[in-house]
């Protein structure tokens, strides 16, 4: 089965839960385990929160875009913003690194995303925006294939 969707919404914190629920409802058709569903919702929450806080400095005029692509048992998610961008992606990926300690950010966002998914790619251009691509193969079919 192949399926895809895209959602766009204004950079407001109350949309973080909307984003999680939407992606969760979309991937439900692949019948993920509860753990997989939680992991994916967490990853979406991290990436969307980053776009809102770091990308747009919580300016609601900004737009966050999420694209989800399903094919067989593989979920690919792209979270995009056209915000400030990341000057040093390698530094940003480091556990506990945050550029906004004053907002009590933990610096764990990218670490969690990397841990919960099979693959993570970050493309960012300062002044242009950031795109985070993550991919995960659901375990179920792997189990049945063996």
């Amino acid at each position, binding site marked *: 089965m192949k399926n895809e969707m895209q959602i766009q919404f204004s950079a407001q*914190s*109350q949309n*973080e*839960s909307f984003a*999680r629920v939407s992606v969760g409802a979309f991937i439900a058709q692949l019948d993920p385990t509860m*753990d997989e569903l*939680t992991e994916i*919702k*967490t990853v979406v*929450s*991290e990436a969307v*929160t980053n776009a*809102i*806080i770091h990308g747009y400095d919580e300016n609601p005029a900004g737009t966050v875009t999420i694209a989800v692509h399903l094919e067989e048992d593989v979920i690919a998610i792209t979270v995009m913003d056209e915000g400030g961008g990341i000057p040093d992606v390698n530094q940003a990926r480091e*556990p*506990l690194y945050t550029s906004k300690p004053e*907002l*009590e*950010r*933990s610096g*764990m*966002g990218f*670490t*969690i995303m990397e*841990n919960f998914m099979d693959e993570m790619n970050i493309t960012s251009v300062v002044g242009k925006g950031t795109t985070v691509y993550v991919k995960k193969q659901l375990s179920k079919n792997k189990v049945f294939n063996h």
Partner: protein
Amino acid sequence: MSFMVDIEKRNNILCVRIHGELDHHSASELRRVVDAELDDPATRHIILNAEGLTFMDSSGIGVILGRYKKLQARDGKLVVCGVSPPVHRLFEMAGLFKVLNVEERESQALRTLGEAV
């Protein structure tokens, strides 16, 4: 989204029970409620009861660490209880267990802080 905090004071201990989804949006609500109580210097310890939590991301880690630091400054302790497996995993990833006291239930957390239950 559903998020609710309710609090109870027992001597110098603030019991904070959180329900629903703790993300960047609801973290500010939790911060506001708890910090208002920490304005009272008599509040020395916090028990964070996470039993009712249905979702948490790294924003939750940030707000918990922030309260931990505030309590350290007054020689107080932060005890967390009712941690579900998904929340446990995030705590582990962030190394929170190195600094936090964790108990299974609120009654145990109270005992840890020397409060009769």
